[in-house]
């Protein structure tokens, strides 16, 4: 598993990468009440704002960590956005992306480096 400075986690799953936000990020955001996910089939570039997360008071953007195509989104989050607070590292993943370059993921932090970052 890899981690971005934007508090996303990335996990390889075959030739896809599953992306979500970390426990730390979900607790910082507070009670999540709305999530807007990208369209399946969308072509995205690294740092595109592709997910919007809203809490009671504020909205935050999540950037695409990779260049690639959005293959699947987690529809469950549309009806139950609070799952991101309950299980951010598991069931509440955001989307699966097919990266243009599978090496791109390697530039991100491993768990030890991320733990140090949020320490």
């Amino acid at each position, binding site marked *: 598993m890899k981690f971005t400075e934007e508090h996303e986690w990335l996990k390889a799953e075959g030739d896809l990468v599953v992306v979500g936000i970390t426990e730390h990020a979900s607790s910082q955001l*507070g*009670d999540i*009440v709305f999530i807007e996910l990208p369209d399946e089939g969308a072509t995205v570039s690294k740092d595109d704002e592709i997910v919007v997360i809203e*809490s*009671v*008071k504020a*909205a935050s953007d999540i950037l695409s960590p990779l260049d690639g195509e959005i293959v699947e989104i987690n529809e469950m989050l549309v009806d139950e956005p609070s799952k991101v607070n309950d299980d951010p590292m598991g069931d509440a993943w955001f989307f699966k992306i097919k990266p243009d370059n599978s090496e791109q993921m390697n530039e991100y932090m491993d768990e030890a480096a991320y733990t140090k970052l949020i320490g």
Partner: protein
Amino acid sequence: MSDKLMHTPLNKLHQNNNARMTAFAGYDMPLQYVNGIMSEHLHTRSQAGLFDVSHMGQIVLRGNDFNQVAEALETLIPMEVKTLQVDRQRYGFFTNSTGGILDDFMFSNRGDHIYMVVNASRKEDDIKHLREHLEPLGVSVKNLENRALIALQGPASEKVLSEHYPKISDMQFMDVSTIPIAGAECWVSRSGYTGEDGFEISIPNKAAENVANTLLKHELVELVGLGARDSLRLEAGLCLYGQDIDIKTSPIAAGLKWAMQKSRLIGGQQEGNFPGANKILSEIENGTEYKLVGLIPIGKAPIRSNTQLFCKSLVSQKVGWVTSGIFSPVKKCPIAMGYLKSEFSTTGTMIHAEVRGKMLEVEVTSVPFVKKSFKK
């Protein structure tokens, strides 16, 4: 940065309760505690929440007697002050010469003086404004820096306070009284900013932490931060100065005519004679271009302040903007307030809000979004 922020007398209490702090009006204030905004909000609606609002300005106006002070204050605000009974409180606002709002506040008749609570972000300007206009009339303006202010809000508030002062249940909405809590002389008003029954309690700085901790010992009381204070007041349809009303806002457009007593309006015994009276009184007669309304998006996406609003049938026509928007913890849907051109402000009108390049359907509604429950 944070060491330049001012601290309230309850700052240590916030730190001890693991508050997430935020800068607000120059103060280091609790945004939320461990339970979070949603839980703090719902707790206030069902039991009792304790808020530190010591950043707000507490001001005392004194003259020869109450009547002199009241007459002086009436030159700055479109409210009746002289008729306010002893130990009663009223909502008011300062207007300026162009008919805008300089600040909104609560003021009460404390027998020989007037006590005011004003917004933190405006208190310096308010004090300057008061001194400039009231000192020449023989009224002194004192900024009380020696008192903290907390709010205890929610249906259990009376029960909690009655354990310290049983006669608290005699107080009605907008009554004011001086009572002892945990040995401290507290100035209590039965009012607040949540739409719930509750009390605002002014406490000498030195006693503030002890009084707050004493109230927090009650199992029904939890600390609530500024985050939930904002969501509670918006559900209650209450304006926030700097957001829904400001120096450019007409009190009539903002729906605040109810706060102006009849005697100050056209045909009244004390018609006009406050800053911007011509403009404001003509707006009452002729209406305003915009009106502050409640807004409920049909979908789940919240619409935040500064979101632009458009006509539904003619999408290019801009008809207003959002001033406050949250997700309502009670209604479980987004709610907002904003200004709409008057012809679009009727309840039930459908309009569009532009959010991230998409047009979302929004229904115009009246406020409050949740029923108020005051003790009357």
